[in-house]
């Protein structure tokens, strides 16, 4: 098998927008965008990190399986959306199986080093099925939650309102409201039991919930809660707040023209609401991890 490094697919440097890049004029944290067969949101996810002031590189899982130490060269890890291995067996299951059996330690070390990980849509499904999310909880380990079939029984593409729930997630810090699109068939968040559900709330690990237009939680009612998720949960983090997964796509709302009602506003916003998620991680790496990582 080739040891050739897959050359990162790079977009032109993003348009310079006020406040978008370079908080301190200094380092641009390196984000690794993990690819595999069927991952298909890699380019826009990488672009979102670039826009937020990071720099993105794209790596096929096979390169990481060959040389796990490659991960040490990055400060942020992203598992993007898509249909890894076609959602065969269940969404994210096969990709998760690869990570569990070959990369579990590598990922743990990454988190122990204080570096953030995000899983979006299929990436969220992967992180949940690798036991990384929400991680050991309520005295239970292994897979304690899942993302089951949507209540409506099929894939749904629509925009949803989300409300931040504070808590310890570094990715959603300061985010109160956000509108993002979803596009998934298996997005119904289900904790294994009541203890896990409670522990998620009490531990500040519920980061994001589906909400009504006014910001109130959706209360389980369709279409504000688009998939039947328990407690309207749209995104959770681990106990450290570093590992975050969500079903909606923040990388699909980094520009105002991506919003479905942008033609109704007088003046376009300077950036899309989802960009805040990526900026948070970049800022976190700069502040907490520092340039020495």
């Amino acid at each position: 098998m080739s040891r050739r490094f897959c050359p990162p697919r790079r977009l032109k440097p993003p348009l310079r927008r006020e406040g978008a890049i370079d908080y301190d004029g200094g380092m641009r944290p390196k984000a690794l965008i993990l690819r595999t067969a069927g991952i298909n949101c890699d380019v826009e996810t990488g672009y979102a990190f670039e826009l937020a002031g990071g720099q993105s590189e794209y790596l096929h899982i096979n390169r990481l399986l060959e040389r796990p130490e490659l991960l040490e060269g990055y400060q942020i890890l992203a598992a993007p959306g898509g249909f890894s291995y076609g959602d065969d067996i269940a969404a994210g299951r096969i990709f998760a199986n690869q990570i569990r059996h070959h990369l579990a330690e590598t990922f743990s070390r990454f988190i122990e080093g204080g570096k953030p990980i995000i899983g979006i849509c299929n990436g969220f499904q992967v992180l949940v099925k690798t036991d990384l999310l929400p991680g050991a909880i309520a005295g239970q380990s292994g897979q304690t939650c899942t993302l089951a079939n949507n209540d409506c029984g099929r894939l749904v593409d629509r925009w949803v309102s989300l409300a931040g729930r504070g808590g310890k997630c570094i990715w959603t810090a300061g985010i109160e409201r956000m509108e993002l699109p979803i596009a998934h068939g298996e997005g119904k968040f289900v904790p294994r039991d009541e203890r896990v559900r409670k522990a998620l709330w009490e531990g500040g690990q519920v980061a994001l919930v589906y909400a009504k237009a006014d910001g109130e939680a959706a209360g389980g009612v369709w279409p504000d809660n688009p998939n039947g998720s328990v407690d309207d949960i749209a995104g959770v983090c681990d106990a450290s707040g570093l590992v975050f997964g969500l079903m909606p796509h923040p990388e699909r709302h980094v520009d105002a023209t991506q919003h479905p009602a942008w033609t109704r506003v007088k003046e376009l916003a300077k950036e899309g609401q989802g960009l805040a998620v990526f900026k948070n991680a970049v800022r976190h790496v700069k502040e907490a991890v520092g340039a020495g990582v």
Partner: protein
Amino acid sequence: MIYRIDVKVAGNGIDPLGESVRHQIAEFGMNVGAIETARIFLIDTDATREQIARVAGELLADPVVERAEWVARKPADKGKSRIEVHLKPGVMDPVAASTEMAIRDMGLSVREVRTGRAYLIEGTVAREELKRIANRVLANGVVESVNFEAFVPKAFPAGHGYRLNLRHASIRGLDDGQLAKLSREGHLFLSLPEMKAIQAYYQQAGREPTDVELETLAQTWSEHCVHKTLKSAVDLEVKDEAGKVVERRHYGNLIKDTIFKSTMELMESGSGSRVSGSGGEFCLSVFVDNAGVIVFDDRDAVCFKVETHNHPSAIEPYGGSATGIGGVIRDILGTGLAAKPIANTDVFCVGYPDYDREKLPNGVIHPKRILRQVVAGVRDYGNRMGIPTVNGAVYFDNRYLGNPLVFCGCVGLIPRNMIQKQSRKGDAIVVIGGRTGRDGIHGATFSSAELTNTHADEFSHAVQIGNAITEKKMTDVVLQARDRGLYTAITDCGAGGLSSAVGEMGQKLGAFVELDKVPLKYAGLRYDEIWISEAQERMVLAVPQENVKEVLDLSAGEDVEATVIGYFGTDGAELILTYAATEVGRLSMDFLHHGLPKRHLKAVATKRTVSKHNSGAHGHDARATKERLLAMLAQPNIASKHWIIRQYDHEVQGGSVIKPLTGPKQVGPSDAAVLRPKLDGYRGIAIGCGMSPQVEDPYDMAIASIDEAVRNVVAVGADPAKIAILDNFCWPSVEDEVTTGALVRACEACYDAAKIYGIPFISGKDSLNNQFTNQETKEVIRIPNTLLISAIAVIEDVRKCVTMDLKKDGSTFGLVRPHGLHPDLKSLAAVHRFMAEAIRSGAILSCHDVSDGGVLVAAAEMCIASGLGLSLDLSVLGRGPFDECQGKYLVEFNATNGHVPALPRCPDGVEVRVVGGVTEKAELTEGGNGADRFRVSIEELTAAWRGTLDW
């Protein structure tokens, strides 16, 4: 040994799949009890029971919501009835392949995995009833087998190997009748003159053909691959209604002298097809490659192609539409040195969803099931590929009952310096992507035949099952190889498989192919099957020898199979095929590509009298108008298609600017989609389509289709000078002077409209055998003459685009239209240009194309989209509110209280009428001149419009 694991919903949780199946069974008039479903895994392995228990618990079943059950012997199923569906041997099973890989990732060995599904129905259901349920709702006998008890095999049947057995056909001594018989029985679908040309070739060569040579000729010369009808010479006689010939015209090559010609003339004159400001060209590659290519910006171009996949979709709708979309994506990947797919489109024509099930001809799948399945096919394939499906349409008409139409389109982005390709002598022939199996054999010739109710059996091997992930992996690798400059040419394996791909790439050079090198899905394929198989997800690359290793390494690094199967460049430019070091075929490339005898057709058309328009209710009976409006909104052709749209990911790749459903509640039907292919800029493309099979006269039908496609993209802000269009002809048959005449008239309309609008055709495709013959009753159902026009436009700044949802209480509301009841093409073109300028100037807040259902329906849609109301007085229009004719737009002006903002100069032939205003009150009212005012709430409008197809 083989272990069987069933995965079911855990505990007393609801089984959403079971519920949905029960619902679908009920739609067929059968009511059954609760259904429990299971996913079946059959694992052939030497691993221990404990190890497989780990596989079941960790891999196959979700530990939170599912449970795994061992099935060691047939369960008793007390009080329940069982239906099991298993794929037939040899049918693509992506889940099985992924499962095998994952089991190996767990450090265990496995020989083979197969998967299936089980449905356990509460209560005892008679066997006959179970069979009906299985056949109508659960399984497709073409690719799946049905069991009524649990399938617990001891061993999987092993495939048989193949030993070369070279077969020849005798052709030199045959008379006409025998030639025709050979063509028919060998599924060659060649005409007698074509068979005679082949006979002459072999008489001269002094030998008989091998079977694979005949197959190669049949594939290459098939209507599907070479479009011989549209390239025919045609003599047209135009008669008046009394039958007197009033005009005669001759075309040396129908398509070249009409559609191609208009593009060439536009390119030469530069008019209309120039990118304003850049001074450069607009069309970069037309009618020569897989797709038409136009300028996007200084660095990149966009290309667009639309294909049909009608006959496979009639027999196996899910696989047919999935491989339709998979195929057109490969067309884009095979354009130039490979374009990156950035958007998909889909258009379906089917019978009405409420068609009487008792009257359904034998062998025909009910239209509702067809629609569900073709949507699922596009959804599963397009979503997995990560390509947004952004635009489409559905047309219901019972003439599509036996022969539905499935159009799949794909748009690509390609660097402008990669549009040209040319394989070189000595380049290796590399096949990349999926393996070759028996699937899809004879697809090219099958699509050139007409459907009958025995086709499902006779041509079951023509059905293809796709695996999107194989194609996605291949796409990832191909685009990397392209950027590294590793190959000189690329072509997709479409209809005709390797035979057409290699034949096309080696047309000038010749090619040498070792068929036993081609990787196979299973043993036992004959050499000729390998050569013509239409197995999906394969591309052919011409790779300079020094780059071969890098291509193979790059592919292996991402788990993609790439194999050298031969080389380009033979003495005398011959095509040479070998199997096990034995020559099995040798053909002159010149004869293969230029030996097809030219056809000469006679055509008759009737000079058109002015078409009748659906003029609607002129009278202003308020109650009748309201009821008619609600009925029209609920009509399937007009009703909301959100059920389909919501299943497609139209946001992936992040470029979505105008989505298929728009407005504050995301329910309004956008006229066209707009997206930004490059995230770091605001330049974009708009994609729309038009189709008017309900118009009888073929000339008017074509104009209506073109005008609708143009209106759709103009309505969101496209400039007519930057639009390009595609044609897709679907005709019932072209067998006599009248049907040929209709085709000629449609081509003439395309020429006229393209020239006067200044909008070039850049690519096209035709499918000319779309009628269904019921072999029992001999009844023939012919589809209406159907021309799909797909439009793509380059938008300089997407932030200037508008959507169709009303924006502001108090805005002045108006209609822009051409003068007169029967506007000529010049007035229509002027309307489109005026509309584009008005939008660009900022004078328009919202704009909606007026099409099916006329002005009132379009106005209602604008209300539904926004939640705002309209107060209209349509009496000033002088035509009925449901009048359908070309060239009309409804607009919300950026001005209030009946004032009209400053507009660009209104050219001759265009009129702008104020017809009312936007109101905060959520109702649509209409009336004027003292007529009764009708009033309908937006809630009522929405319910009618969204209810019909809210599946």
